[in-house]
């Protein structure tokens, strides 16, 4: 029997992932060993610190790229690639974790679901997401995706008193398993036709066999797109999104919309743009179609929604369309645009769901548009924050949302996809309708508001949620007004592929 020569492993390469996993383990161990309830918010604080450690580790990685011998490279026997692209998503996911933890704290206490499980699952799920982003092997992507998803199934069904929550978990689970099967089948076909699941290996094979039109490979690619398309909620693989976003506990929805979508896109971008770059003429039309369908379907259905979470879900579908526009451009600007978009979107959408968390009140039930009536009067700051976030999602200038759209659309134009660029802009017009509708609702008086003496029911904004809002709104405005540093970040992330 041959002795096994373990590969040389440098764990600092996956420091951000390890930080999250370690945090989760620590939390789990503590909670199972110590009976005493920890002080209020301790879990959340710990999770935020973990995310902070992850961020710090990411920053360290990022800065090290400039050093000799630490340029972007593959690690763990070529299983992952340590590059700017990965680090970018580490950052995005870590931010999502921190924000989700802050949101979760008060929510869990309000809904009397407190305990460490939420945080553990969020941390582990996020680790899966990061893994997807860094993966250099289809099997790692698959494992990362499953890690992310399985934790999310649990989180979706976390609010066991709400039947919607269970239904969401159920639907998410069935459909996700279904799509994973397709993804896996796609991986198998790619494996068969190229002889490897390793992305670098695939790229090498493609470079050597560029002229061959390979049906199995292309079939595999199409099925990969099914799996990723499902994760990022692109039409026609979006059907789970509204139901799951609506049914899940709101902080979970926020995390899902932020981290899960980003991770899905990380894998999609890496596999399609980087690995299958030579086949871009084959996949661009598919992405084109998916982008158009997502843009239009997402916007059109969103305008007839009356539930805020559901509406945001549909809007997230149309946002996925924009990111796909960036991918469809298949140039560096497009990818950088997609990255910037995801960064901006993470803040916008988590901020938005933060407000839904507050307005949803106890039982996570009040998500109809009517619940937002008169918000501007009762909670002007909240209404202002939501307005900024919604306008950003609509793509109004001086917010990050505008630059994100501008970025991907400019990439599309650069690659001469004029029609797509125009469709994307027109979809933004449709989309603007429902964002404005929400804004309008907040600024219109609620029933009984005319009566000056009537005291509206208090709408407390917990500290954590406030923090989320401040950072979301702050980032949205900051990146909208002084975007250079963030754009630089996104651009460097693509250069350091």
């Amino acid at each position, binding site marked *: 029997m041959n002795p096994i020569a373990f590969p040389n492993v440098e764990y600092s390469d996956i420091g951000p992932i390890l930080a999250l996993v370690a945090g989760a383990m620590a939390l789990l161990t503590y909670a199972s060993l110590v009976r005493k309830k920890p002080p209020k918010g301790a879990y959340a604080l710990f999770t935020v610190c973990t995310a902070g450690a992850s961020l710090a580790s990411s920053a360290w990685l990022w800065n090290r790229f400039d050093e000799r011998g630490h340029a972007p490279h593959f690690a763990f026997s070529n299983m992952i690639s340590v590059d700017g692209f990965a680090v970018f998503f580490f950052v995005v996911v870590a931010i999502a974790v921190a924000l989700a933890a802050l949101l979760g704290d008060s929510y869990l206490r309000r809904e009397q679901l407190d305990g460490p499980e939420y945080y553990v699952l969020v941390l582990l799920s996020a680790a899966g997401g990061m893994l997807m982003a860094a993966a250099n092997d289809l099997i790692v992507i698959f494992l990362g995706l499953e890690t992310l998803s399985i934790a999310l199934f649990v989180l979706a069904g976390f609010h066991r008193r709400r039947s919607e929550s269970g239904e969401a978990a159920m639907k998410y689970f069935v459909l996700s398993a279904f799509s994973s099967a397709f993804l896996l089948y796609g991986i198998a076909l790619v494996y068969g036709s190229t002889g490897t699941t390793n992305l670098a290996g695939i790229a090498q094979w493609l470079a050597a066999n560029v002229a061959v039109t390979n049906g199995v490979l292309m079939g595999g690619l199409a099925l990969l797109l099914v799996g990723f398309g499902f994760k990022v909620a692109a039409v026609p693989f979006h059907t789970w999104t509204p139901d799951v976003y609506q049914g899940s506990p709101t902080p979970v929805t926020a995390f899902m919309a932020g981290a899960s979508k980003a991770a899905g896109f990380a894998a999609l971008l890496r596999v399609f743009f980087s690995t299958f770059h030579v086949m871009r003429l084959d996949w661009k039309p598919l992405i084109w179609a998916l982008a158009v369908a997502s843009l239009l379907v997402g916007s059109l259905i969103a305008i007839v929604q009356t539930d805020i979470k559901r509406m945001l879900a549909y809007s997230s579908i149309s946002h996925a369309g924009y990111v796909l526009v960036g991918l469809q451009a298949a140039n560096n600007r497009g990818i950088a645009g997609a990255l910037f978009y995801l960064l901006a979107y993470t803040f916008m959408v988590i901020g938005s769901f933060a407000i839904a968390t507050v307005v949803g009140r106890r039982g996570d039930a009040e998500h109809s548009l009517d619940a937002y009536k008169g918000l501007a009067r009762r909670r002007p700051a909240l209404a202002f924050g939501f307005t900024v976030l919604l306008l950003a999602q609509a793509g109004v*200038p001086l917010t990050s949302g505008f630059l994100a759209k501008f970025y991907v659309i400019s990439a599309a134009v650069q690659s001469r996809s004029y029609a797509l660029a125009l469709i994307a802009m027109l979809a933004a017009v449709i989309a603007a309708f429902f964002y404005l509708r929400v804004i309008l609702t907040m600024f219109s008086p609620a029933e009984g508001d005319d009566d000056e003496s009537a005291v509206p029911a208090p709408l407390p904004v917990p500290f954590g949620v406030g923090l989320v809002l401040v950072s979301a709104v702050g980032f949205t405005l900051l990146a909208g007004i002084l*975007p250079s540093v963030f754009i630089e970040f996104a651009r460097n992330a693509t250069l350091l592929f």
Partner: protein
Amino acid sequence: MIAAAIAESGSGAGFPLLSALVLLPAVGAVAVALIPKTQEQVIRLVGFLFSLATAALAALLVINFKKGAAGFQFLESYDWIKDFGVAWKLGVDGISLWLVALSGLLFPLALAGPVVKKNAKNYVAWMLLLEAGCIGVFLALDLLVFFVFFEIVLVPMYFLIAGWGYANRTYASMKFFLYTLFGSAFLLVSMLVLVFLHQKATGELTFDVVKLAETQTLATSTARWLFLGFAIAFAVKVPLFPLHTWLPDAHTEAPTAGSVILAGVMLKLGTYGLLRFGLYLFPQAAVDLGPVLLTLATIGIVYGAVVAAVQKDLKRLVAYSSVAHLGFIVLGTFAFTNQAITGSVLQMVNHGISTGALFFLVGMIYERRHTREIAELRGLQKPAPILAAVFTVVMLSSLGLPGLNGFVGEFLVLLGTFVTHRWWAVVSATGVILAAVYLLWAYQRVFHGEPDEANASIPDMSWRERAVMAPLIVLIVFLGVYPKPVLDRIEPSVTRLITHVEDHSDYRQPTVTREVAGG
């Protein structure tokens, strides 16, 4: 040539006046936002003072503007998004100068004039933000910066209509926002296509309007498509027939100050865009497709007037009159003669003053009678002779009576257009007749006749209202009698623009409209 013009203007260094003009109102908005809600008087005062300070800056700009220089002055340029070659580049020339001045004038009046009943804080803050946006649009010399301002103004205006408007405000504000956004979609895409094609041809990625305009690299058909894209966006904003239907709704439902700004300043964003970008960036395409726009403008002039005549709502009537008036501006823009374009620019200012004033007046009537239905108003001249007199002057300005400002612009436009596009000018001139029909008819129904009880008891203009109208009336007369200082500053820039069009297209201006040698 442009470089020389810039060098000659030379006032780039020193105090960043233009940035200050844009930022001061924005700072004001923030300042207002920080004052507690209950301090309504303080809020109003602070808001007014900020807009007044902005007006002072605008006046400073006008005073220091180098007369006779054609190029951009007071240039400022700072990198904004380096990766895209986007810079915070501001500059002013004879075309934008007066629009900035107009904004500087109308906003303090709009803030001082009508008093809103509720939530003064948000209202004032939005107004100031709107001012920053509007001034930004006129000063931006970077396409993206322009676009940012062009879009951002929608937000405050949307809130002003939706928050302080009349019964049908939701529909109107939504329509306004979405319609304009629809146009912007074409603008943004065309803009990007232009920029990237320019990059392909020259290797430089830049949104700098001057650079884009001075190196014409586009193929004819491409330029036409791009021009069309720009034109759609601006046509919506102008609004040009048949993209105008958002305007009556928005104007009618907006609060008085909103209507004033909407008509006075915001519609000019479209005409200014056509002039600054349509002609400057796509000279040949503008020449080729000019007749299309001329035709739409002409239809708009006649159609707007005809439709205005039978409106039942006084505010709606004024709104449709804007469609007609803006038609003149577009007509002049695409006539490509010194007189027509200079007239257009002047007409932008004139329309801002007179239609702004008209909306103030309609607002005053509404405040007194709580209706805008023409059928319910009658004989107001009897209880309110001063109001009637002011209305008369403004109305005469609006219908283009010589000696008042409206005539000067309209006449120059028609005169200049006639030389190059005879029949368009002739048909458009009938708009002058129709303007008299609908305005006088409206005046007759509202102010003449024997007032019934409800109308007989209204108060005349208050001192506050008189103070608001006074500067407008003075300008209406002044610009009608002695427009020379204004024309002298517009004309060099217009001449340069036409020379630019001639340099880059097969168009040649007729001799008769050219600058006389040594004249």
